[in-house]
């Protein structure tokens, strides 16, 4: 085992095109999509029959039968069946957290290679029975006689048979993510125009990335879909301005969040391939970037003053301090676009003097970023956001971006910052540096 930690290399990635829910992948399960994505990764890097250190992935919306989802995907893939795997779940932070876990094991010399990412389907979501019915069914399962079972069944009332469809809402606040985001948007005075502009740029950037072949070695088609079907290359501020607000409607005319500047429910999967430099060299695989450091933060969005999706605001200054960097020391910023307003509120918080002093405990704010470096090949507003898949998408994308750029200002290695907000008031952030 190496005496000092080494840095984990990001070698590349693979994802399937993301599809809007109940569309092209309506009949595909998490396991189907994750296995296919894994096989596409195996094909891209020539790993058929190879035993990797581990595969780590997860899904936010998960059937109980998929308790060992990632291991099942490995067993169904062309990887050696001797490759271990486990599931993680940290809401929208899943994919990035998985990459951090794999990178840390690589850094410690415990493994030489690993795959990290996630998958989600909003189409094939698990539907649970409501609590009353569940109790009756559990009791029936335990009943010894037919008479007992019939008796138990007879106790059911029609209202108890209504299923529990998973909702995109926080258990402790009862508010949906969009409603939470709308509150934060209002708090920070994020305008409708700014949100629509961000959304339009995201579509434009992703379309341009496809056009220049940037995604050729990041995406493998699935079920006949070759590009993300949420992508609207012709999206414009004017078109987006015509949409009706869907979140924060309690604010009347101040409601700013529409279906156009919020991510849709999406199906998809994404994975990143990581390894030690030695492993990559031995397999003649490219090292695009190194994962330098990472941080996860959480906020008290229930009883405290912070918004549900604002944890990255806290995670980034801690990460910067540890790394001795400023917010301006990056060539690329990959800030997950759960909602356009989330990205904009995060940027405003970092620029705010009062907030820096009162809430972040800093003498000065982090400052503003060069917006031309933000989500330069598009992000979730354009591609869509299958919750657990987003981290894998961003890690592979950013690794490729810093690799393409090579060096940044003053000849230092190109560097990028990832920031992903997650349900439960959490945020996962990381730094990648060109190899």
């Amino acid at each position, binding site marked *: 085992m190496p005496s000092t930690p080494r840095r984990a290399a990001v070698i590349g990635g693979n994802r399937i095109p993301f599809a809007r829910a109940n569309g092209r992948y*309506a*009949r*595909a*399960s998490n*396991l*189907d999509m994750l*296995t*296919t994505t894994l*096989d596409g990764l195996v094909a891209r890097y020539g790993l058929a029959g190879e035993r990797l250190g581990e595969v780590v992935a997860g899904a936010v919306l998960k059937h109980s039968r998929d308790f060992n989802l990632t291991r099942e995907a490995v*067993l*169904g*893939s*062309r990887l050696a069946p001797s490759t271990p795997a486990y599931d993680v779940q940290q809401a929208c932070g899943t994919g990035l957290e998985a990459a951090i876990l794999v990178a840390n094991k690589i850094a410690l010399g415990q493994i030489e290679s690993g795959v990290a990412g996630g998958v989600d389907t909003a189409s094939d979501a698990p539907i649970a029975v409501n609590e009353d019915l569940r109790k009756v069914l559990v009791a029936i399962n335990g009943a010894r006689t037919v008479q007992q079972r019939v008796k138990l069944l007879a106790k059911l009332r029609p209202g108890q048979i209504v299923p529990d469809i998973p909702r995109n809402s926080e258990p402790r606040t009862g508010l949906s993510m969009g409603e939470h985001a709308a509150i934060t948007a209002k708090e920070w005075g994020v305008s409708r125009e700014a949100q629509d502009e961000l959304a339009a740029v995201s579509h434009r950037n992703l379309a341009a990335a496809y056009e220049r072949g940037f995604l050729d070695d990041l995406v493998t*088609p*699935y*079920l*006949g879909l070759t590009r993300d079907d949420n992508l609207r290359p012709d999206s414009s501020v004017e078109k987006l301005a015509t949409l009706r607000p869907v979140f924060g409607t309690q604010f009347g005319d101040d409601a700013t969040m529409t279906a156009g500047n919020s991510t849709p429910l999406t199906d998809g999967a994404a994975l990143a391939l990581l390894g030690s430099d030695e492993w990559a060299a031995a397999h003649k695989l490219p090292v695009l970037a190194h994962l330098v450091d990472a941080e996860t933060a959480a906020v008290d969005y229930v009883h405290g003053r912070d918004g549900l999706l604002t944890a990255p605001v806290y995670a980034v200054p801690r990460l910067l301090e540890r790394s001795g960097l400023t917010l301006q020391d990056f060539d690329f910023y990959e800030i997950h676009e759960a909602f356009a307003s989330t990205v904009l509120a995060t940027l405003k918080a970092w620029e705010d003097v009062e907030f820096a002093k009162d809430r972040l405990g800093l003498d000065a704010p982090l400052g503003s970023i060069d917006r031309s470096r933000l989500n330069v090949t598009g992000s979730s507003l354009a591609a869509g956001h299958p919750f657990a898949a987003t981290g894998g998408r961003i890690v592979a994308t950013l690794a490729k971006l810093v690799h393409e750029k090579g060096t940044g200002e003053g000849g230092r290695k190109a560097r990028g910052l990832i920031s992903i907000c997650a349900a439960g008031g959490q945020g996962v952030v990381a730094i990648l540096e060109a190899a």
Partner: protein
Amino acid sequence: MIALYAKAAVGAVLPGRARSLPGTVLERSVTPEVGHLADYGRVCGFPLADALPLTFPHVLAFPLQVELMAARSFPLPLPGLVHVANRITAHRAIGLGERLDVRVRAERFAAHPRGAQVDLVAEVSVDGTRVWDGRSTYLARGAQAPTGLAGELPDLPEVDGPAAAVWRVPADTGRRYAAVSGDVNPIHLNPVTAKAFGFPRAIAHGMWTAARALAALQGRVPEAATYEVGFRKPLLLPSTAELVTEQAKEGWDLAVRNRKGAVHLTGTVRRA
């Protein structure tokens, strides 16, 4: 389909059955739907991918098989025909969205130690190129075949050893497979109808067992492959079964057996 079974059941007791195989060739063209494929995959254990499972085209050919066997021109009565062996060769992976031309005919009407056997042969082509072949061998107990012809059944290796998997096969397996395959033979559907044909309980479709076993080898089977199975003791529903697999040169040998060791199915998968 149920109507065909009914018609065949009536036909079985009427006189005037043909003595030789009809020259009929039945054809259909079909583009499998994602939904059908997903349902089939869920029942048999295949993932939903861009390529059809090797056994899937069988369910596309099956309705034509039944139509052919239910006809008065067919020399054996459909009710009571037992599927004893099946051989499938996929020449290449078949992609989702490809339009498949399916042709079914009967051949090799021959004697079997316990009656007569016949093969239902299915060919699947894409734009004139053969991509898949299927041969289903059925036995009619006590029936007479034209003299002089002796049928042959595949000589499959016996696979012994520890179970690779234990399946708890639920009672509704026959009904679920019937829904995705169109094979609504009453012996698979529920205990009462199965009893009418002399089985103690409903039995699993042989092709379900075959598909389920192949699905267990996901990721380890070449796309162009020959999958040959022999059906032995019926798998009663519900029950617990064991899958045994053994790597062979250019493929796998496998068996499905009950917990006491009685064999339901033996099979081989080989690169084609």
